[in-house]
């Protein structure tokens, strides 16, 4: 039973990784690509690591996997926010069909 859950996590995680990687290539500007990046990290990496940690059996192995998962889960939003802020401040344009830019309106 618990192995079945681990296999389901591995399958969904690798599918999320592949879909998010396609999104990183296909999306039109930096801010949309950051969205696809968080899909890769949270959906792909963390779910796959949880599946691997369950599959490894209950030992020191699972504990280390949980530490890595918690660290990535905390670190990824911070780095995504930092990149988005840096991109907006250094003047990277939005996609031409984007409708609203509240931060730019706020600064004026």
């Amino acid at each position, binding site marked *: 039973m618990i192995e079945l859950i681990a*296999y389901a996590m*591995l*399958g969904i*995680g*690798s599918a999320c*990784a*592949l879909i*998010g*990687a*396609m999104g*990183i*290539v296909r999306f039109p500007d*930096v801010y949309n*690509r*950051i969205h*696809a*990046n968080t899909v*890769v*990290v949270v959906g*792909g*990496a963390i779910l*796959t*690591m949880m599946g*691997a*940690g369950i*599959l*490894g059996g209950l030992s*020191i*192995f699972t504990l*280390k*996997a949980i*530490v*890595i998962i918690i*660290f*990535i889960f905390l*670190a*990824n939003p*911070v*780095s*995504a926010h*930092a*990149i988005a*802020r*840096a*991109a907006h*401040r*250094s*003047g*990277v344009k939005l996609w031409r069909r984007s409708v609203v830019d509240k931060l730019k309106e706020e600064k004026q």
Partner: protein
Amino acid sequence: MILIGVLIVIFGACIICAVRAVLGPTAPDRVVAMDAIVALMTTSLVLLGVYYNASIYLDVALVYAFLSFLGTLAIAKYLEGREVES
């Protein structure tokens, strides 16, 4: 056996991300693609640790994730101060 299949899918996703890291018109595009590649490589290290039943891979994965986080923050801090080239 299923671990090897998942590893192959993850390496395929890494190669797709590398396309954007090479093409990307601005510097933040490349940083986002490299961040995704590093997360997927950390995942593949954990999977290799399960496959070979060796715990040392997980230590390497933890240090790799930590250093990539610091590197991303440093690059973001560097990019803030300069105008983008069109």
